Structures are given as C-alpha cells and as structure tokens.
C-alpha cells in the first residue's frame, strides 16, 4: 500500500515516531537468571564439583572404586563384574558394571547400584516412586543394535590388575580396564583416545538411610550456623546439606530417594578441542568451564527448560539436551555419549604439557578433561573411536537413529507468526506471497487459533472456517502447521481433558494425584507420553473427525514440551512428580519432550494411514529434544531476539545440532522478540536460506514482517534469497537423504569437512552445505559491505553467482553489499538445482534440472542427486531416484548410485521419466573449450550433438561453458563428452 497526498508528513514520519516510541518503551531483553539454577544452587552439581576440587587438591587422592577381579565374566562381547565402592573401613557398596563391545564397533559402559537394583532401600515421605535407578533411557533413545560382538576378545597376558579387550573393525580398538582403582582406557591402533576415571572423579552416590535429624541442625543459633555446617562437612567428608531436600525459587524437592547422582571424568589425551552437547547459545568449540580468561565459570548444563530471552555466549541450559560429545584432533575424532535423561552438567578443562625442548619433533600435548554428572539414573556411557568425524556421527546414528526423511515441503520455506489472527488473515498472507511472486510452502498458526487455548479446537470467532482455509492452501500444494502443546487445559466441558483424567494418562504429582500446573490455558494437566496408553489415546485425537478442520495438509508443532510450567521450579515440573510406572520426573526430565513429540509423530502417522491411500510422512517441529528426537522431529532454537548478535549466534547453534545428530534445525528468521530493522531482516533471510529448517517467525507484540512488508529493495533481496533456497532444493533434499541414511550433518562446520585443518577447528561462522562444496558465510553485522571467508585448502573456490575466483588457504574478503549472499563453490563438485521460479516446492516437481560442474586443476568433479515423490513412504520400497554424476577427462556421466532396485522403483521411475537436464554449466572449464561449439551426448546408445557456449573469464572471474538443453533423462544413464 502506498499513499500519495500528505505522504511526506504522514507515512514517512509515522514509522520514525513509532520507532522512537518503541525505543523508549521496549523492554530490555534479559534472561531471568534468578529463575534458573547455577551449579552452586544445584545440590548434586555442587557436591560433584566439590568432590573434584578436593580430589585434585589431595596429592594422595585415590578413587575409592575398585573392580573386584573375581567377579569378572566375559561372554559374547560383554564383560560383567562388580565395582566395590569403599565408603568406610568396613563398608563397601556393590555396583554392578557391564562393559559391552558392540558389533558396530561402539563400546558401552553401564554402572548400576545393587541395593537400588534389588529394591532393598526405603523411600521417605511414603513415596510411590520406583526404587531402581532409572534404566529405561535406552528404551527411548536407542533404536540400533546393542548386540555384543562375537569377535571381541579378552587379551591374554595383560598386565596384572588389568583386563584388556580387543574389539572393533580388525580389532583395532582396545579397552584397557584397570581394576584398582577402577579405570578404563580406550585405544585405537594402540594409542589412547578416551580415558574413564583418569582423574578419579567417578562417583556413584549410593543409597543410605537418612540419619535422624540432628537437633543442632534445627536449632541453629545465629553465628553458629557456619560452624555447624563446617562440622557437618568435616565428619562425613561430604556436604550433606542437599542430600534430603532442596529448595529453589520457593519450590521444594522432597527427594524421597536421597542423594543418587552419578559422575565420571572422561579425558581425551591429545585432543585440544571438543564439540557437541547441545543446546547452548555458545561457540561450537566448547569452552573451559572452571574459570580463567575467556572461559566460563559454570559447567555446561543440560536440563530442558523454557529459558525466556536467553543470553548469548553462555553455558546456561536451553530447551533441549543431547549429551553427546566429540573430541577432535587433526588425525582423530572420537565421541562419547552419556545416556542419561536426568539433569546433567559437564565441566571441561584443558591441560597442556609443554614439549620437551631437547626431544626432537615432540610437540605440546593437550589433553581435554571433561567431568560429567547427572542427578540420578544409571551411569551409561557409549564410546565411539572414529577415526573420522563421519565415522563418529555414523556410530551415533546407528545407535540413536537418523533424521527422518522429511517431506519435501518441510525443507522449503515456512511462514510463521504469533499469530495470524483469522482464517481470512491466513488466506490474505497466502495471496500476498503469490502477488509478490515469493515462494513459500507452509503457513503456521500459534496458540491463538484455539478456542481458549484448548488444543484440538478452533476459535469460533476468528477461525470460523478452517476447512475452507486449508483447501485454499492446498490449491498451491501448501501446508498448514498448527501448534499443539502437552499441557491440556483443566476446564469444564472440554472432552480432551475429561478423557485425559478419566483414562488417567496425565503426569502425577508426588502424592500420586494428577499434577496441576499453569501454562498458556491457565490451570492445566500434562499428558504423560511415557505411558503407551497415552500415545494410543493421543493418536485418536488427530483423526480428521476428532480434530475437525484439519486435513492431509495439516501438520503439527510441539512447543513448551521441556515441559514448560509457568509456576513450576525453573519454569518446569517438580522433580518429585511421578510418571508412568512411578518413575520420578527427575529421572526422565530431559526425555519427556521427546516422548511427547514422538507421540505426535505416531499420531500423524496413524492419521495418515487411516485417512489417506498412501500414508505421508509426518512433520513435527519440537522445541525440547533428546538423543533420538531426530527420528521424528525437526527443532528450532527457541525464542531468540531480533538482534544482530542472535543472528550470529544461530550459526554455531545450528552447526552444533548437525554434528550432534539432530541436523534438521533452524533459528527463527528475523528473531522472535522485538522488531528487526529491514537490513537485519534481509540479512537473516539470506542466512536462513542455509538453515536446514527455514522458518520466519515473530512474537505477537511485533510488527508484521512477512518478506513483502519491507518494500524495495529489501523485499526483492529477500525474495532472491528465498528463490535461491528453492532452486537448491534438489541439493538440500539429497543432503537430507544422506543424513537419513548415514546420520551426517546437513550443514557442516569447517572441521567436519576438513578434519586435518587445525586453523579451522574453532570456526563456526561459516558452513558447507552437505557434500556439495557450497561454502556459505552469512553477513551478521550491521552496515557490513564485506565478509572474510576462510578457505581450508588450496583448492580453488568460485563465487556462486559471478564465478569470481578465490584461491589459497586462509582468509579472503568477499564484497557483500546488502543484496549479496556470500556463497562459494568449491572445485571438484557437481551441484544439481532447479532454476525455474515457482510458488511452492511441489509446483517444481516437473521442472528440469540444471547441473553445475565446478572444476579445479585436476579436472575432476562429482556430485549426487536424490529425489522421490517428496511425500509418501514409497521410497522405503525403492521408489526413488539416486544418481551420481561424475566428471573426469572431459566426460560427464550419470549413473545409478545403487544399481540394485527395490520393488517400487520401476513404477516410480516411469512416473518421472520425463524429467530432464535442461542445462549443464561448467565453471572453470579448460581454455581450449572456447573452440568447442558442440558436445556429444549419449543416452540409450544414441549419440547426438548439442550446442555449447563458452564465456571467457575476465578480471579474476572464471570462464564458464553452458551446454544447451542436452535433454538427457534424469532416470537414465547418459554421458556427455566435451572434448
């Protein structure tokens, strides 16, 4: 809308006034630190840190844990035994230990506690809670084989007091178990990679009865307090003040099972850098956590929480948790996976031993030492010995599963806002995208679409006709995503809550009544998806008849599933709440969110199976996550701010998700809270086009900011970014396929692509798109006109748009005015894309492909293209096309990646047989091609000649050649001979 008359005085000054006003009244965005615990405020965290401190202060410290050699048994790749923990001269606690060597080459160490295992303990407060340490994490997280390796074997003639096991591929791996004190060293090719209990910080807080209250404790007199406390610590050697009860923010945790934390130190000798353990708003390379310049003073915390207006560069916890860490050096990558669903903290320190100046060739040797502690549960750790980053992530993927193959629309652009206010509003936004020729696939509805925050209902006043709305969207194959949260409104005449209560499927409080807390709807109950019956019930709610107004193009967003409870401790549930089969909430806190979005996935799958001829892949977005979440959901980084710093922070966060096995990740484009400037919004769209999950979103108090709102030049530039994403969807979809099969990241940090390049270990502000050789660096600074991009090798790189050449390891400056997306192509790759502009991804399905071959000095290049119907599960039966393209010695050829075909292949291949390559672009071709006017194209044994044009590169730009419409069919083998 433009205005004429009086325009200068009205429409131009109004925004200025508004902006000024906004400046004056806009609240300062700041995380509420007081709502979340520091390590000191978390009993077991403090205790374990103190334990570490006293251990390192004590030169004669020796870990009180010893493996009783007489108990060791080994069979079928599994070593069993009992660790004895000495707590007094005459008292030993029995801790059963299992070390498994899996067929897959991974190792697992599990430590339990005999008394709790057998239930020989007493709970306080008449608690109904289970007595065992929580042992069902694997039920939720692990889908891969846990079968022991037949080939793993105990070595003969091991040093006395040790047991050595050879395992893994070609028995290259080795586990050296020290009996007293108990310790474990994992070696690859004889070289130590991972060490357990090297620092003696192993700690399993065993069950003990609560001593009768010491009167002094209750009758503390002023001034005596310190003395009494001191004495208490002295007597037992431990700080027992948080053993039996803990209070925080007015909530008291009754801790009926007493102290029960598990802790272990894990060292990575020779590794100077560790990555992983999302989710934190921090650098990808993890920092040290015990103080010092540039280090944190707090351990990294993993405790799923609704952290409002989170701060950057902090080890503070966020919405999801993946306790999986990789250690990396230029010749080795290893990983550990700490499988525990309770609150977990990780301390990291590094120690460097100086090289001996007299010893030739010796170098500084850095060891990264980590210290893990969880509040409860088994100690359960997996070790992956690499040696490459892909090996480690593959091993992790084998265990926890890989990214679900998404529907094609899910990796296109999503338009969200809290809230599109009416069904007509949704249609209007949809029409405007078309009017401005901006592609988009999905529009989203936040909580306001419901009737009074009752999920599965529509506001009768504002969403009068959802059917007509979704049909309207379906005309262009567009989708709707509506939010459904785990809190169910506690109100009258709401069948959903009636059923939840009647069927007893909600989380219980410590007294075993249905737990009641506050969330969006006010008083609410929480579905307990640890209960299989709850999942069955949940499935019934998504049928079209049950959730009236939905259809096959409606998908689901699961928010607030940390769970977020407005009036609960740390904005979540009390830890002594009880779940299905009486597990305490503390045991499953970090798992809860995953059980919920899994249930939604199951429900959508069941809906599709029941309602559609060919079931379609569900799409679920989740905020909370845990290892395994990747199998059913995409994630986003939660409620970020419309600030440049948050744009910058999104890169390491998204990259970290990728290397931690949950690559379908993105940040809210534009920033959730606050109003981004047009420049920031534009830059964010350019960056967002390279998030695996690409969604624009905005808070209810912000101004509208759909890409067409900003006006020129911004709208045009944002549209270019969106169209770039759409044109590269073939490459993105192929990357998702790879992630689905191998667990690999979709966007990759420098170290993952160039593991040997030490200069790039800490780099987390630029990314590679899978294996395409596309290297992207977003502009994340205001008024920037250029960015410095880092090249890890001497291979030539070319500007994606202009073919300007960049060569030489190190930093290069790319001019980047607002309209420029800094994107390079690395030589040696072939990138598939679709250049025709369309309204949505589904409308591109019949479009031909363009292949871009990027040549370096060796004149070789390779690439892949995967696609299927983009919707159904038919790909599981082989209904997909997966081609490899390779170029060498002047010939480009296309071949099937997997010659063996599934039964669904023929039919599908026939349906897409018309798809062709319309253009082949060769960047940096040999100079002599200037004289080549035609190239030979062969398919089905027939040869023909088609035109090729050649443009000579000038002033630092590479030459390029374009083959005009070779008309080769994608589904077939073919070749093009250039010279």
């Amino acid at each position, binding site marked *: 809308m433009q205005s004429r008359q009086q325009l200068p005085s*009205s429409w131009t000054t109004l925004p200025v006034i508004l902006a000024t006003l906004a400046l004056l009244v806009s609240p300062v965005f700041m995380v509420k630190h007081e709502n979340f615990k520091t390590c000191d405020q978390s009993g077991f965290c403090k205790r374990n840190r103190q334990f570490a401190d006293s251990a390192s202060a004590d030169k004669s410290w020796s870990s009180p844990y010893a493996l009783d050699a007489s108990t060791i048994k080994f069979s079928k790749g599994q070593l069993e035994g009992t660790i004895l923990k000495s707590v007094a001269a005459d008292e030993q606690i029995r801790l059963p230990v299992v070390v498994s060597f899996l067929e897959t080459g991974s190792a697992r160490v599990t430590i339990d506690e005999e008394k709790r295992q057998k239930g020989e303990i007493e709970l306080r407060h008449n608690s109904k809670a289970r007595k065992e340490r929580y042992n069902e994490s694997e039920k939720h997280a692990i889908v891969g084989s846990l079968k022991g390796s037949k080939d793993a074997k105990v070595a003969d003639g091991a040093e006395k007091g040790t047991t050595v096991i050879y395992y893994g591929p070609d028995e290259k791996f080795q586990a050296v178990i020290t009996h007293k004190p108990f310790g474990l060293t994992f070696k690859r090719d004889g070289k130590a990679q991972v060490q357990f209990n090297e620092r003696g910080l192993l700690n399993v807080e065993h069950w003990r009865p609560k001593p009768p209250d010491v009167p002094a404790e209750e009758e503390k007199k002023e001034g005596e307090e310190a003395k009494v406390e001191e004495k208490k610590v002295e007597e037992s050697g431990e700080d027992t003040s948080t053993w039996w009860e803990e209070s925080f923010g007015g909530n008291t945790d009754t801790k009926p099972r007493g102290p029960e934390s598990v802790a272990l130190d894990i060292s990575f000798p020779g590794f100077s850098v560790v990555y992983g353990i999302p989710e934190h708003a921090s650098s990808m390379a993890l920092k040290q956590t015990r103080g010092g310049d540039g280090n944190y003073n707090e351990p990294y915390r993993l405790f799923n929480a609704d952290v409002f207006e989170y701060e950057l560069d902090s080890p503070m916890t966020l919405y999801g948790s993946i306790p999986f860490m990789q250690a990396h050096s230029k010749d080795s990558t290893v990983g550990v996976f700490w499988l525990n669903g309770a609150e977990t903290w990780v301390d990291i320190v590094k120690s460097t031993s100086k090289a001996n100046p007299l010893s030739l060739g010796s170098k500084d040797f850095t060891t990264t030492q980590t210290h893990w502690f969880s509040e409860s549960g088994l100690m359960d750790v997996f070790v992956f010995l690499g040696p490459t980053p892909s090996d480690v992530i593959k091993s992790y993927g084998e265990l926890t599963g890989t990214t679900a193959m998404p529907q094609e629309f899910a990796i296109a652009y999503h338009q969200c806002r809290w809230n599109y206010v009416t069904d007509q509003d949704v249609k209007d936004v949809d029409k405007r995208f078309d009017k401005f020729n901006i592609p988009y696939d999905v529009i989203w509805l936040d909580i306001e679409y419901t009737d009074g925050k009752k999920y599965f209902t529509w506001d009768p006043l504002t969403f009068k006709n959802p059917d007509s709305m979704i049909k309207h969207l379906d005309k262009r194959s567009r989708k709707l995503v509506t939010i459904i949260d785990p809190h169910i409104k506690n109100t009258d005449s709401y069948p959903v809550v009636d059923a939840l209560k009647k069927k007893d499927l909600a989380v219980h409080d410590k007294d075993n009544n249905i737990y009641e807390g506050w969330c969006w709807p006010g008083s609410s109950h929480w579905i307990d998806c640890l209960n299989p019956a709850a999942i069955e019930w949940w499935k019934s709610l998504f049928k079209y008849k049950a959730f009236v107004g939905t259809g096959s193009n409606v998908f689901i967003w699961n928010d607030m599933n940390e769970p977020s409870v407005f009036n609960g401790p740390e904005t979540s549930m009390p830890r002594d709440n009880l779940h299905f089969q009486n597990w305490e909430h503390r045991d499953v806190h970090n798992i809860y969110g995953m059980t919920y979005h899994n249930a939604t996935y199951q429900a959508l799958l069941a809906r599709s199976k029941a309602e559609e001829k060919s079931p379609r892949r569900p799409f679920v977005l989740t905020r909370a996550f845990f290892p395994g979440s990747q199998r059913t959901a995409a994630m986003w980084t939660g409620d970020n701010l419309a600030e440049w710093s948050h744009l910058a922070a999104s890169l390491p966060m998204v990259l970290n998700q990728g290397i931690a096995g949950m690559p379908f990740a993105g940040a809210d484009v534009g920033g959730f809270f606050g109003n981004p400037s047009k420049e920031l919004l534009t830059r964010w769209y350019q960056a967002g086009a390279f998030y695996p999950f690409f969604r624009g979103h905005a808070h209810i108090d912000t101004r509208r900011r759909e890409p067409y709102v900003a006006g020129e030049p911004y709208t045009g530039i944002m549209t270019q970014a969106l169209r770039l994403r759409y044109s590269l969807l073939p490459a993105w979809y192929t990357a998702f396929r790879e992630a689905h099969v191998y667990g690999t990241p979709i966007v990759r940090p420098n170290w993952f692509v160039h593991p040997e390049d030490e200069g790039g270990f800490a780099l987390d502000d630029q990314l590679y798109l899978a294996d395409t050789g596309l290297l992207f660096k977003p502009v994340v600074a205001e008024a920037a006109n250029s960015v410095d991009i880092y090249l890890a090798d001497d291979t030539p790189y070319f500007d994606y748009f202009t073919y300007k050449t960049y060569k030489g390891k190190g930093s290069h400056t790319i001019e980047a005015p607002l309209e420029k997306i800094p994107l390079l192509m690395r030589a040696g790759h072939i990138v598939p894309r679709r*250049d025709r502009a369309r309204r949505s991804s589904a409308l591109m399905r019949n479009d031909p492909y363009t292949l871009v071959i990027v040549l370096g000095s060796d004149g070789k290049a390779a690439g892949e293209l995967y696609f299927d119907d983009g919707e159904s599960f038919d790909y599981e039966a082989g209904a997909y096309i997966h081609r490899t393209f390779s170029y060498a010695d002047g010939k480009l050829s296309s071949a099937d990646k997997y010659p063996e075909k599934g039964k669904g292949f023929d039919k599908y291949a026939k349906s897409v047989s018309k798809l062709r390559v319309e253009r082949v672009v060769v960047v940096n071709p040999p100079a002599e091609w200037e004289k080549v006017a035609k190239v030979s194209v062969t398919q089905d044994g027939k040869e023909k000649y088609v035109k090729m044009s050649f443009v000579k590169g000038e002033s630092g730009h590479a030459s390029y050649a374009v083959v*005009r419409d070779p008309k080769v069919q994608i589904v077939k083998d073919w070749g093009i001979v250039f010279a």
Partner: protein
Amino acid sequence: MRTKAVITFAFASTLSTSFAADLPRPRGVSPEYAKYYKDASSFACIFNPSITLEASQINDDFCDCPDGSDEPGTSACSHISALSPPSAAISDSTLNNTAALPGFYCKNKGHRPAYIPFTYVNDGICDYDNCCDGSDESEGIVKCEDKCKEIGTMWKKAEEQKQKTLNVAMQKRRDLVATAARLKLEVEEKISNLKSMVQADEIKIQEAENNLVETEKREKLRAITAPKTGGRLGVLVSLAKKRTEDLRAGVLKLMQEKASAEFRVKELEGILEAFKTEYNPNFNDEGVKRAVRAWEEYEARGRHPADDHVAQKEMEDLVQDDSEHGLTWDDYETADRDTDSLYLIESYLPPSARDWLRQKYADVRVFLVDNGILPAVDNDAAGESKAVQDTRTHLDSVKSERDGHQSDLTNNESDLTKNYGPDDVFRALKGECVNVESGEYTYEHCFMDKTTQKPNKGGMDTAMGYFDRIEFVNVDEGEPADGKGLGSGERIALRYENGATCWNGPARSTTVILVCYEINEVWKVVEEEKCIYRMEAGSPAACTPEGSRGASQAAGKDEL
C-alpha cells in the same frame, strides 16, 4: 545490483483488439507482441536483437534470450526477474536481462484476455482466476479444460450487477454532495448570523459597561446616606454570603473530584483485577509478581471504607441551598435597606424633591471626597451593593454570551474551510457511524469523528483513533465476487490517529480505506501491525465525481 522488483502480473484488459489478432502467434504471445514473432525463419530477442535464434527455438522450453522473449509460452525463462538470484551463466550481465514480456498471455476466448506470470506456466495448477481457457498448462502435467464460457458469463453478470450498484452509488453520492452543499450553506448562514449576534453583543456590552459606571456612581452616593451600623451589617451579611457560597462551591468541587477519583480508583481496580487474573506467570517477572502480591494484600484490606456513604451524605447536606436550612440572605440584605430608610428624611419628601436632594448630597459628597475632606467609601466587591453586583453580573453574562457566539463563529468558520474531501462530500456523513462485527469485537467507524473497538462480551470500549485527515492510498487487492473489496488503484482513506495507547506499543490508529459502494459498510478490519488498524469499507462518498472510476468496480482498469 538489481533491486527493483518487477511484478510481471497484470491484467490485459486494456489491450486493444485493433492489433492484428489474425496473425499466427506462438503460444503465450499477446496481439501486442505478435509483431516480434512474424518471421517464420528466425527470431531476434526483443530486448537483445543482436541475438538471433532459429524459429524452432521459440517455445522449445529452453531459455535462450537473456530477456526471456523466446519462451512466451513456457516457464523456461521464469527465472528472468530481479526477484531471482543472479547467475552469470544464465543471465550474462553484459546483456539486457530485463524480462521483455509482461507474462504468459491467456487468450481466454469468451472472457477477458489476461497475462499470468511465467512462474505459473506448466506448474500443474490450472490458474482459472486469470487463465480461464487453461492454456497455461500445455505440458499435460494436469488437464485444464476451457472454462471461459462459464467464467465469462458469470463475470459479465457480476459486472452488470456491479454497474447497477455503481449507478445507485453514484446517485447516492450526488445526494450526499447536495446534502453537503446544503449543510455548508447552513454553516455559512450560521456564520453570518453569528457575526451579527456578536456585533449585537458588543453593543450590549457597551451598554452594560455604561450602566455599571452609572450604578457605581449612584451607589457611592448611597453609601454616605447609609447609617454606619446598617452599612456594616450589610457588609457582614454580604461577606458571610460570599463566604458561604465559596464554601459551597469548594465542597461541590471536592465532591466532583471525589467522584472522579472514585471512578478512577474503580477503573484502576478493574485493571488490576484483570491484571491479576490474566497476567502470564510464564515470564516469571519479579516486578509483576510483586505487583500481584501487593494487589492481593490491598484487596484483603477491603477496597471501600465503610463510612464512605456517611461522609457523602454530610457533604450533600452541606451543598444544599441555604434556603433549605432556613436561611434567606435576601431577607437580611433587603431588611438592611428598610432599616436604613427609617433614617432617611428624603423618604418623606415627594419624589422630585427627593431626587434633587439626593443629587445635591451626592455632589457635595463627591466634592468633599475629591478634596480629601471625607474618606472614600470602601467600594470593592465585598462591600458592593446588590445593585452594583447585579449590574456587574449582567455585564459578565453579556460578555460570556458574546464569547460563546464568538467561539461558535470561529468553529463554524474553521469547519467551513476544513477538508471534507472531494466536493465536500464527507460533510454529509460527519458523525454517521457504521458497525461491523469481527472476532470478539464490534468495530465502529464514525465518519470524520473516530473509530472504536467494542468487546462483544462487554467491557470498556477502546478508542482506535480520532479523525486526523483525508489522504489517498494506492491499493492492489483482490476483489471478491460480491464486490466488497478494495480492488486496485487509488482509494480515498480517512486517517484516525491518537487512539488509546497500546501496552508496549504505539497509540492506536486506523486507516479507513473507502471504495465506491451503494451503502456505507465496513467489510473488514485488520490489525496490520500492532495496534495499527485498517478498515476496508464501502461508501457512496468514495465514488468519484466523474463517475468513471468506480473504485472497486473498475478493478484497476484505468490504473495500469
């Protein structure tokens, strides 16, 4: 770089059929562009004529021309747009990369021809909205039958209906303009009346002023004759009366202030009550929590003091007229005069002699005073006699009458020069209100006055803005079949500003965009941005005087 977005989407309704329609044209080419495709053997790119192609390269689904002109009937050149990412290999920057064609031309035989964007061609969707003949899908991905006959007929019917509506609307507008003219005349008349009234008032003021001087002089005289005691009593009485009146006025004012304060307290309590029940504990804001706790304590103490109505009663008693308490000031004031008269010899004289005597007394008195022999009588308001006061009161009332007329005059004069839109048409609608229900609110637009949001469930109305100005805006909207939409082109808009301020946002404002329609209706209310509203409304007042631009009816015909 290319920054200007070109929307290649346009209706082709203005394309004249005078172009040689019988020339054979490749698919997607309009008569207007037919001339470029005449040559049967070769084709020169329209914007890059140095590039020549074989005729077979036209519509062969490969984009050869950097301006896209070789593919008028396919989507092969759909990327040729400033909205697409630049690419050296497919759009050489040394050439003209601007799209040469406005879009794919649908002949739509039986209906109106139209262009659609190339991005819509062969995408598997029948875009019947603008391409009723289905010619946009030639690849066979989907079969789009020709629906022009049916759509065209419907369209014609709708157009006829719209034309009828337009005619009615135009007539109504003429009526409105006539009414506005009449109202304007009335204002002018009023102005002229007021002007004479003001003149008359000035004369009255002059008279009253003279009268006052006269009376004062007379009263000075009377003061000499008044016996000392009686005069003092008179002064006392008038002082007491004045004091009582002041006190009563004070109490009244207090009561008003109290009432207003109570109203405000009630309102605030209402706000806090709502705050307590509606605040979002999610944000765990300590400040908010403190406020809620403090409110709960406040509430526990009891909101209204129990003896409140007693105080109220007392005050009401206090402000009752004095006569209610058996006090009649006039009795004392006039009695005073009667007593005085006992001492007056002159009262026993015949009136003519009395006047003569009085005059003489006065002259002597003035002479003595003037020469400093007698002290001047204290003559300020408190000591003023009833006669002087009455005269003064009269003067004041005449003055205030004049002021009233003057301000009426100023208002009317400014109203006369105020912008009421073309032909003064909105003058006829001033103050007229139109309601529409949307969601949980009813929205009200009162022409040239204000916009209001009224909750349907009850509660306070929210001002969405007060009239500020008239402006023109360009819109480009779809138009529903019932004609209740903005259409495309320039539309008149009424701007309402400075409504209630939003929490964490600006003061509410509303733009009411009007299009020509037979009655006043609000069709749609949208909150475009936080607290910035837009109403789409129909009104006969929005029709243009010449009648050619039937706003929504024209669907932007003449703007393109």
